Every structure is written in C-alpha cells, then in structure tokens.
C-alpha cells in the first residue's frame, strides 16, 4: 500500500507539470481554436530564460530566495516575450486563414525555437545544468519520500490554477476573455479589443509555462533544448482529455494523465515500456464515451 501512495504522489508531481502547460494550450484553444504546438517550446524558452538569468544576472552569493525570484522573473519575461512575438508575427496574420495553416506555422515556430536554442545558447547542444535553488532533505510521510521542490511544484500548480480561475471569473479582462471565446465578432462589437485579449491569453499561458519550466529545471538539475517537444504533446493530450478550452479540465486532465502513466508503470506487466500506450488508451476510451472530454461542454462544430 505504501508503494501505491508513493506512486500516487509521483503521479501528482508528474501531472502538475502537465497541468501547468496544458493550461496554456487550453486557453489559447478556447479563444482562437488554435492547437499551438509551439507551446511546449515556450516552456523550454522559460527554462532557458531562467538559466540565462541565473548565469548572467543573479549576483554570486545571492540568497536562494532572491535568486529564485530573479530566475522566475527572467523566465517569465523570456517566455512572455517569445509568445507575444510569436502571436504577432506568426499567428495574427493567419487569423482568417484556413484552419490548418496556423498548425503548420506552429510546427515551424517549434522547429525554429528548438534549433535557435540549440545553435545560439552557449553549450546547449547537450543538456545544461540548472541550479537547484530549492534543496534540502526530502520530506518523509511514513515510507513515502517526496522532494521539497516536488511539493512546491504541486502546490504552485494548484495555487496558479485557482488564481487563474478567479482571474477569468472575477475580473473585467477575464470576462472579456470569456466573451471572446464565446464569439469573437460579437465581442468586438461590444467594444472588446479582441487583439488585446488574444495577446493577454498568450501572455498568461506563457507565464504559466515559464513557471513550469523553472520548476522542472530545479527538480532535475538540468534542462535541454528538446525538453518542450514531448512535454507539449503530453500537455496537449491532457488538455483534450479534460475538454479542450476548459481551464479546470486541463488541470484535471494533467493530473489524470500523470497518474495513469505512473500507475501503469507500477501495476501493469511491462508497464514502463507501454505506459504511453495506456495513457492514450485511457484518452481514447474517455473520448469515445465523452466526445468532448471530461469537462468539455459543447461539441466544437468546426471541423
């Protein structure tokens, strides 16, 4: 039983990374129906932005808390800048284009960001070490061991999700976001600056991804230029599992995907080799019975 709880905890930690990234996917999709395949790369850019901040801006001997704060700010700025540029230069001109055009653009952006880091960030052809700013003894709950940074990560995911939900529900901007998601044309007529709302959506998603990137870097002590690709696909899966366009759904989907992977590894024969298969089987199973995901409400009429 202990092993079950240990693995359950592992699943929550893994799922929290998926959740943080899936939020960005789901928000962008909710507003402009774009599968932003480059979002995984935003996560990667955040991690490298944080690393660059630590290497070149954080003074030597700075206390860990200050360093962490600066790294986070650096990461968020990098991710947000990348996302805004990406939206402005690559996606906005295609807003009225056929639906698949931006998808190809997203792949192009993803390649450009990965290769850009690989070629131009010093030494990034292989993984780069990342400072473990949250260190200290693991926490023990009975026989379950969890690293401090992992707990911080899960808590961060929960807090940010609640914050984001409140933002969308309570603020004027949040209201405008919901209106735009519902019907951009009408929203425009109601005096909402749709362009601005779309940029804000990208900014929020990028900031969350940046936090995830820094946490990932601190957890494993290293980052590399391809860290975003697979993570992006998994997070996209999580977003769809929960019902794409739905914030709570993305988080639920993230945690669920993490748990499925981890529990499949533990309990199924040859689990670690087949875990992704099980993850997709669960996804397909759920979609067969709930064609718009766990919490998705309306069926997207667009094909």
């Amino acid at each position: 039983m202990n092993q079950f709880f240990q693995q359950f905890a592992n699943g929550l930690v893994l799922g929290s990374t998926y959740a943080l990234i899936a939020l960005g996917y789901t928000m962008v999709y909710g507003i402009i129906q774009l599968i932003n395949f480059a979002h995984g790369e935003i996560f990667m850019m955040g991690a490298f932005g944080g690393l660059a901040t630590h290497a070149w801006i954080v003074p030597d001997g700075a206390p860990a808390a200050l360093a962490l704060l600066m790294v986070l700010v650096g990461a968020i700025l990098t991710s947000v800048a990348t996302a805004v540029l990406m939206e402005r230069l690559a996606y906005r001109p295609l807003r009225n284009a056929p639906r698949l055009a931006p998808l190809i653009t997203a792949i192009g952006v993803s390649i450009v960001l990965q290769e850009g880091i690989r070629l131009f960030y010093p030494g990034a052809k292989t993984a780069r070490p990342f400072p473990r700013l949250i260190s200290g003894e693991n926490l023990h709950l009975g026989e379950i061991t969890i690293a401090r940074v992992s707990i911080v990560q899960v808590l961060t995911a929960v807090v940010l999700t609640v914050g984001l939900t409140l933002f969308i529900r309570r603020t004027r901007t949040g209201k405008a976001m919901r209106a735009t998601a519902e019907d951009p044309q009408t929203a425009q007529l109601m005096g909402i600056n749709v362009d601005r709302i779309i940029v804000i959506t990208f900014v929020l998603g990028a900031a969350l991804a940046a936090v995830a990137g820094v946490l990932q870097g601190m957890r494993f002590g290293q980052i590399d230029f391809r860290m975003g690709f697979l993570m992006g696909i998994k997070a996209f899966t999580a977003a769809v599992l929960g019902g794409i366009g739905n914030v709570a759904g993305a988080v639920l989907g993230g945690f669920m995907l993490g748990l499925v992977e981890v529990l499949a590894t533990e309990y199924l024969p040859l689990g670690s080799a087949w875990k992704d298969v099980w993850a997709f089987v669960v996804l397909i199973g759920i979609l067969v019975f709930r064609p718009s995901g766990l919490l998705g409400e309306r069926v997207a009429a667009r094909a």
Partner: protein
Amino acid sequence: MRRTNRTFRLIAGLAVAVLVLGACGGNDDGDTGGTTDDAKILKIGVIAPLTGDLSALGLGIRNGVDLAIQQANEGNKIEGYKLELAAEDDTAKPDVGAQVATKLSSDDEVVAVVGTLNSSVAESVQPVLDGEGIAMVSPANTAIGLTMGADQKNPQRPHPNYFRVATTDAVQGPFAADFASKDLKATEVAIVHDNKTYGKGLTEAFAERFKANGGEVVLTETVNPGDKDFGAVVSRIRRAKPDLIYYGGEYPEASLLSSQIDAAGIDAPLMGGDGIYDDTFFETGGDGTVGDFATSVGAPLTELESAADFIEAYDAAGFDDPPSAYGGYAYDAANVIIKGLEEALGGGEGDSAADIATIRTDLIEAIQGVEIDGVTGPVAFDELGDTTTKVLTVYKVTAPRACAEEASGEEEDEDATTTTAAAGEEEDEDATTTTAASDAEAGDKPCWKPEKTGEFSGSDDEAAEGESDSSTTTAKDKSAGGAAE
C-alpha cells in the same frame, strides 16, 4: 497606382539585394577555395546526425574525422593527394541516410565514409555504399547483425565494405557483467534501458552474463528518451533494493536517471556502457552521479600516448563542440581509412590512371589488413569487419576532490584540463551548480577515473578462468548475442 510602384520597387530592390549578396558570397567562397595545386583531391565522407537531438554526438564524429584529415594533410601522409571532408547530415533517419549515401557515392572524389551513429541508419546506408564499392567504417554502431548477418551462430558478413571500430554489445555487456559480479560483488541488479537498439541490446547481453555468473536481475524497466520524470521507475527501483543499477542507453537519460536515483535516497551506483562515458553525464547529473560506472573500449585514455595526443590536438584545432562519446572512435575510423589509402595508393603514386573505382576497391582490401594504434588502443579488423580490440576499461565518476588528488601525474593533469576545457565558456555556471549540489571546492568538477582495465577475449577464456560450466556460458554468450542484435 502609388501602391503599384512601391511593390515594383520592393521586388526589384529585393532581387538586386539578393543578387549582390549572392555574388559577394560567391567571391568569398572562390577565395578560400583558390589554393589549387597539383594535388588531386580525395574525400572522406561522414554520415551522422548534425542537427536535432543527437547532433552533439554527430558533431563529435564529424570533428574527429576532420582532425584526422587535417593531420594527414599537414603530414602529407598521402603523397600527391589532398584529403577533404565531406560531412552530411543524416538527421538520424534511415531514408535520409540512404539519400546522403547516394549523394556521396555519386561524388567521384569520395573514397570512404565514416559513419553512421545509429545502427538503423547504417542498415540503409550499407547496401548503397556497397553497391558502389565504398568502404564504410562506423565509429558507433553496435547492432550485431551489421557484421554477422541474420544468423549469429553461423555468421555471414552481409556487406564486405563495412567495418566498425566500436565494439558490439556482445563484448561490452558481458565485460560489464563480470566487473559487476566479480569486482563489485553485486548479486542483485536492476536493469533499465531506453528501448532502443543500443541500450536494449547492451542490457540483454549484460543480463545473460550476469545471470550466468550467479547474479539475479530483480527488475527490468525502460525509460522513454525525451521523458524527464522517471519518478515511477525510480520508486520501483527503490523497493527492489538492488546492489547495482545497470543502464543501457546514452548519457542524457542516464544523467537524469542517476540524479533522480540519488535524490530518492538509493545508494546503489549506476553503471552503463560507452554511451554514458561522456563528461556531460556528470556535468548535468551533478552530485548524484558520483560513484557511477561506465565501460568504454580501449585502455584508459590517460595511459595511452595516442589518446593524450588526440585530446591535445582536438583542443588545439579549436572546434566549437566537444568530441563527445564517439569523437575518439571517429578519429580512429578516419585514421584507419587514411592508413588504408596509404597502402592502396602506395607505389603507384604517379599513376594518374588509377581511377576512382580501383582506388575504392583497393581501399576496402587495404582496410581489412590495416593495423594502427588508435585513441582507443590497437585497431584491426577480423574477417567480419568487427574490431579485434577486446580491451575495455571501467571508469568511475570520482568526486572532484579525489580527482584533484589523483591528478598529480602529468598525463592525468592533461586529462583534467581537457575535462574543463570541454565545457567551454559555461565554466562559471557549471561551477555554481556543482557547488550548489555538493560540498566540493568551487570550480572543481567530478571526473572519470579508470577503475579497471581488462581484455575480454571472447567467452571461452573468461569462462575457463572462473566458471565451472564453461560450455554453458559459451552457449549463453552466443544466444545473448542473438537476442541483442
């Protein structure tokens, strides 16, 4: 109308700019290539991934060959000829590999190819180069079928143009298994691999031998290249309580796994093959990797004169990227080709009638008989094209302080400098990390320290040495090979 004019001007301007740029570029290239003397040109091709995920390994291979070619030209080793490098990116994909192999074989100056990194790419490149009679020397392929064909018990060389300086899983896996059971006295081992040709084959060969030695494999898991969070697998390892974790795969996943194993409070060390024998393993894995082991072909680099020379020359050549795991092998592979060329062209130097087809055929024959002292030890090939070197060394990741103490001898010192130099400008950053993770002195990093060197002379000798049931071991060894190819 105004708009019309602007567009016209824009197009015209762009066109002119591009033309001018093109012309300038052309001139530049013309200048560099302007040194044409009477020397005829021969090219050595490289087929390796130069972009994407595996580019670090591929660039190491390219640079190793480049270095060998530069040295050959400086020493004027092949009179009357100038060697050139023709490096092509295979993007680690078999069909692209076949394309560039065709490209290289269409070039009448290409005499041999060093490559590939991936065994699957080699499988599609082999027949193309064989069709044109071009020698291929791989620095990194480990799949057994490449030299032995479909049936290992009755090996038949599928392509006479194919050689490799890397050892197969059938040598490295059992060697590591013997070290684990005899030197580390490990009886229970957990096996993790990345489910790719190299990693899976290596662990299968290891497991077979380890069981024959009386050990037990308590757990077999896989990790997915590209995944970072191995929490679930690590928790399973923790419960299995092995004496040793044997990993089949390359350093990016290995360093993640090692540090996560350490972070979970597991004391057992991790051991792997030449795929993890790279400084990046501990640079990114941090403190958690100290005490881990890796096997690699040849005597310790620090004890071989040729190896020290290679490291020095590599640094002096000023490449952008470190040699990585296979740079040394690639250097050896290129030198094998160069030595072969010396012999193939020997005597008939003034014979301008020697056409490319003859040179290529002669070269394959010559390579078969070549013997050189390489970075990885003496290099020669058996009748299947496999390297005859069976000398392997176990290296251990040693804490920075112990590293510094050991580095008293001159050659060791050399090695230490290389380790630092390989990291390049990020020295500071690395240092901070290491300090954050360990209590070592600032600026110091762990190092690979040779732990044991031995000759793995096939299964017979080894079995006769310690094991009572020599015949079974032999049989098992072969079947291990069969499962691993």
